[in-house]
């Protein structure tokens, strides 16, 4: 990167020692927050997955949520499949998650007989290329019930229990049963990259562990916006990059330019311990070393009480603590000290005289 710049410019481009880069990063990410527009720009590309964007997405990333509100995965394909739409479609169909309720017209439970009647939609069965038989055998594999095919669009399930609550719960469970595709992969759609004309699959969920096992998927290029899934599959470094990348993407979408360095610092802050920590009460701020810093942020009483009970010590080195007692900060210009103290100066003078 640095090579491009004119001679001598690099040294002056260096960050200054003591620079409070954290504060600057926080301001750089937080300040444009007010400018964000909530209107979602759904691109003219018709068949794409809708994605949370703007401030809500920013908050979501920073919160390190278990799962994003709208997860998606870009599944790139290997050389054999990426050029052909038919082959790509085939892979998409293998991945595309179909639940019973997606193909059923109705799922009706009868409390008196303990039977659940599933009426399937012929059209949906055809579209997804599945039969009543395959659904029935999937249901039979579930514990506590037997399924039998009545005709090509009807399945009856007899539940072993007579408990009304359990019957209802079972009916719901059948509805959510994945009957085709990959469990937790979501809806999968084929898309085409404009530049390279390469076909790829977008799915509306993030079970990348399982998706990677599908033959024809390029294992080196998969991408999901689910940061935790990235962490679990590829480790903390990948998660760090994913956080920075997602932040960058979200801000760019809104037409806000923030230097990558700020985003990388935030991503590093969230991951430097080896685990993903969120920004807030239960993460970075809640686990600070200083009692006062935690107490001044949130849950004041709790932190003071615990500190007292364990006999905790506060070294008063952070920003918050210094402000509380009115002491000079150890950041920025407060970071430098005199190399020679006044009283030592006097000593030096004496030695010289000798």
């Amino acid at each position, binding site marked *: 990167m*640095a090579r491009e710049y*004119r001679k001598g*410019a690099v040294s002056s481009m*260096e*960050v*200054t*020692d003591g620079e*409070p*880069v*954290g*504060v*600057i*990063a*926080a*301001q750089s990410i*937080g*300040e444009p*927050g*007010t400018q964000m527009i909530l209107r*979602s720009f759904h691109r*003219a590309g*018709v*068949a794409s997955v809708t994605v949370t964007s703007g*401030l809500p997405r920013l908050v979501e990333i920073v919160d390190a949520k278990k799962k994003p509100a709208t997860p998606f995965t870009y599944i790139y394909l290997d050389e054999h499949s990426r050029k052909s739409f038919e082959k790509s479609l085939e892979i998409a169909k293998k991945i595309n998650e179909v639940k019973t309720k997606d193909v059923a017209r109705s799922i009706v439970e009868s409390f008196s007989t303990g039977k659940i009647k599933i009426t399937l939609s012929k059209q949906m069965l055809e579209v997804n290329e599945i039969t009543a038989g395959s659904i029935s055998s999937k249901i039979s594999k579930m514990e506590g019930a037997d399924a039998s095919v009545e005709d090509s669009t009807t399945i009856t399930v007899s539940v072993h229990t007579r408990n009304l609550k359990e019957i209802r719960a079972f009916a719901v469970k059948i509805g959510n049963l994945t009957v085709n595709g990959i469990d937790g992969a979501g809806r999968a*759609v084929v898309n085409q990259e404009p530049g390279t004309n390469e076909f790829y699959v977008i799915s*509306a969920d993030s079970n990348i*562990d399982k998706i990677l096992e599908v033959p024809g998927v390029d294992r080196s290029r998969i991408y999901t916006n689910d940061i935790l899934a990235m962490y679990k599959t590829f480790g903390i470094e990948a998660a760090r990059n994913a956080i920075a990348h997602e932040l960058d993407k979200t801000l760019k979408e809104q037409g806000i330019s923030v*230097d990558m*360095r*700020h985003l990388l*610092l935030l991503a*590093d802050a969230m991951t430097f*311990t080896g*685990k993903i920590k969120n*920004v807030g009460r239960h993460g970075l701020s809640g*686990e600070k070393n200083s*009692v006062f810093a*935690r107490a*001044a*942020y949130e849950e*004041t*009483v709790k932190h*003071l009480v615990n500190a*007292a*009970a*364990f006999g*905790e*010590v506060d*070294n008063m*080195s*952070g920003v*918050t603590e210094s*402000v509380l*007692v009115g*002491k*000079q900060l*150890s*950041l*920025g*210009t407060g970071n430098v000290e005199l190399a020679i103290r006044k009283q030592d100066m006097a000593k030096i003078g004496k030695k010289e005289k000798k």
Partner: protein
Amino acid sequence: MQAENIKLIKFGVLSPEQIKRLGVLKITVPDTYNEDGYPIDGGLVDQKMGVIDPGLICKTCGAKAKVCPGHFGYLDLVRPAIHSEFSKVIYLILNSVCQNCSRVLFSDEELEEMVTAIKESAAVETPMHAAINTENMALPSNEIKIEANGEQGKEKEMKGAKAKESRTKELVNAKSSKEKTTALKKLKDVRKCPHCDFVQKKLKFEAPTYFTLGDRKLKPDEIKDMLSSISDADLRNLEIDPKTSRPEWLILSSLLVPPVNVRPSVTLETGERSEDDLTHKLVDVIRINQRLEQNINAGAPPIIIDDLWELLQYHINTYFNNETSGIPPARHRSGRALKTLAQRLKGKEGRFRYNLSGKRVNFSARTVISVDPYIDLNQVGVPKEIASKLTVPFYVTEWNIEEAKRILSSEEYPTALNVIAKDGKRKRVTETNRKELLDALSQGDIIERQLMDDDIVIFNRQPSLHRMSMMAHRVKVVPGKSFRMNFCVTHPYNADFDGDEMNLHIPQTLEAQAEARYLMAVNDQVFSPRDGEAIISGDEDDITGLHLLTMDDTEVTKEETLYLLGSVGIFELPKQKKAGIFSGKAIFSMLLPKGMDIEQKTRHGIVRIKDGELVEGTITKDTYKGKSKILAYLAVTYGMEELTRFIGLSARLADAYVTLSGSTVGIKEYRISKKIAEEKENAVRATMDTINKLVEQYRKRKLEPLLGYTRRQSLEKMILAELTKLTDLNGEIIMKHTDPQNHAFKMVSAGSRGSIFNFVQMSMLLGQQSTMSGGRIKRGYMSGRVLPHMRPKSVDPISRGFVLSNFYSGLTPIDLYMHAIGSRTSVVYKALLTARSGYLQRRLMNALQDYYIYKDKSVRDTYGNIIETIYAGDGIDPMKVLLAKLGKK
């Protein structure tokens, strides 16, 4: 007092002995004043605990009200009570030790492990090493999944083993009480004591203070006994410091009573005294305590005693925290809940966030702001009224004593308001003592003189969202009552002049003044650290002006040229284009330095400057603000001071030119020709046809659905795409046919204000309303329509919020309604957004505030953790990246 001396603060619990030692008197009377209005001895406002009324003298230290810091009293509880705030900790500790032998529930092996773990962590004591040490890096060793190969059973086994192994290590490595708590919680699951084999009974805890062991309710004194029998050594094994925090001290047998200074009473106009909430609560505690004592002494039945005991517990709970869940809050006579200790500390208005993290300052001013084109970017106009009240310290030395005397002797505006003699006493300068002070003035004194031109001050507008919200300016004393500022610095402050107020701070020490002058000055803030773009620059009319001035065919007469250049202080003429005619480009070039050679390609064409002459191109927003090469070049080659001078002068020149040439937007700018109207008509018809065809296909079930979508969803998506296309097409039509002389259009092409979409909305059509949730408007009646004027379940553009009319010709009633839906939604969202983004900013700030660049360019926090080994991987300041890129030749 110097806070620099505070090295550390240790937290702990007061023992009953300490409480008694700390207290200057034992409080026995549950009352405050007697009938004569004198404090009762042994009561809650006993003068031994300090005095608050001026004139009275403290009976303990003999000092006057303002000097006496106050002294604690104490109260003996007849029966012990649990400190309710600590009950969770008590539960944790009780669960961590054996109910029989009071040993820790760690096995001997675990304890041994702990000793080695402590040794290990002690070996890496320096914070830097602590961060490098692998253990503290907390690799996700026990959490990471070795999943990919699918050996899930094995993995679970490993997880279990690791968890057990790390129980003690986790405790030792815990950096804060919070981490210790989570580590200790694991001991709750130990069923059998590893030391005496006693099977632990189930200990139940119910908020706020009820403990049950097995099926027997534990009383505070029993809990106290259980806690007392834990040995000091075992407490250390639990990472609790027995010196400062013996757990039995968490059960109160004496209560510390805060001095009256902490709970001052107010005298109302009627002469009636109104006591502080804390005093009220303490009265309750003492009263119940006495009743309990009387009953015990009288040998009352245990039920009554237990009832009173519980009541005492209640009052103590609410004394500490009146918002504990599970108990009703204690109320004032009026029904208002009392504000007790916890409430004083908590939340935004609590002691921490309101008084400790936020501080009030002197030497500051606030008033309305207004523009002044003749004030420099780095100046601020301060009204004389304000300047004559604010002061700057003037240190009298051997060399400036004459100057000091001159200031002090003046009876008019630039004079001194106070003199601080060497002994630190501040004396107000008045007409009567001026002479006297003048005679006594000597080296080492400080005089506080009024604010004068060129003093350095910090100017600020809230909300202070980034560092450019506080910049250092030079004072320019002006008449009037408002602060004046240059228009170009409006952007970093996000200020406008519709009544905005701003704050002014006067740095008082020489160090602070130097820092402000060299680090916070407007000059040094031109480029934003967010992305390196110029945030201070001319905008709006300035851009329009320069755009018009630098157009190829702009010709200016000699008189006009003299006026223009005169307004920026240039009194020579550029080269003539023809006799008596000067080109606009040449006039602009007068502001550029000789030898400047740059070229910048933008969307609006190329801008080429050769040897300080604008030879090709027209100035637009891309070349005048943000990523402007002109600004970057000037900064790199000539420095920030020259840059700010250029920004100020060019903006003034631009304003002079728009004033001269005139640029106005009237309704005629938005009137469209017949030709455009026709093209619009055609475009609309074509789109409606396509949509009708789509709907037709859908009705006939012939619409090919998009993969992964139902037919209905596909139809919706296709219609929306068509409508978006239509809106864009209208933009193109406008762009193609609008007269380039149209003033509004000129603003759009200069990039100073407005966009093609604004044009479309005013002249062509409003477009789709309310796409907030990503779709068209669909809410309304159950029958599937937005308004009763439409057919149920209609999908055509008009009935789903696509507005074909424009602001020029007016909206139909249906259009108006649809537009109102969109407007309201965005108003609601905007309110929501500001609240959310404010909280986000607070959280980010709190999480990242301690990070700084260490001398090896790594990023560390003030506790010694390393966050990045080299800042962002390259150690380059984001503020300077664009500068280096654009500033080169």
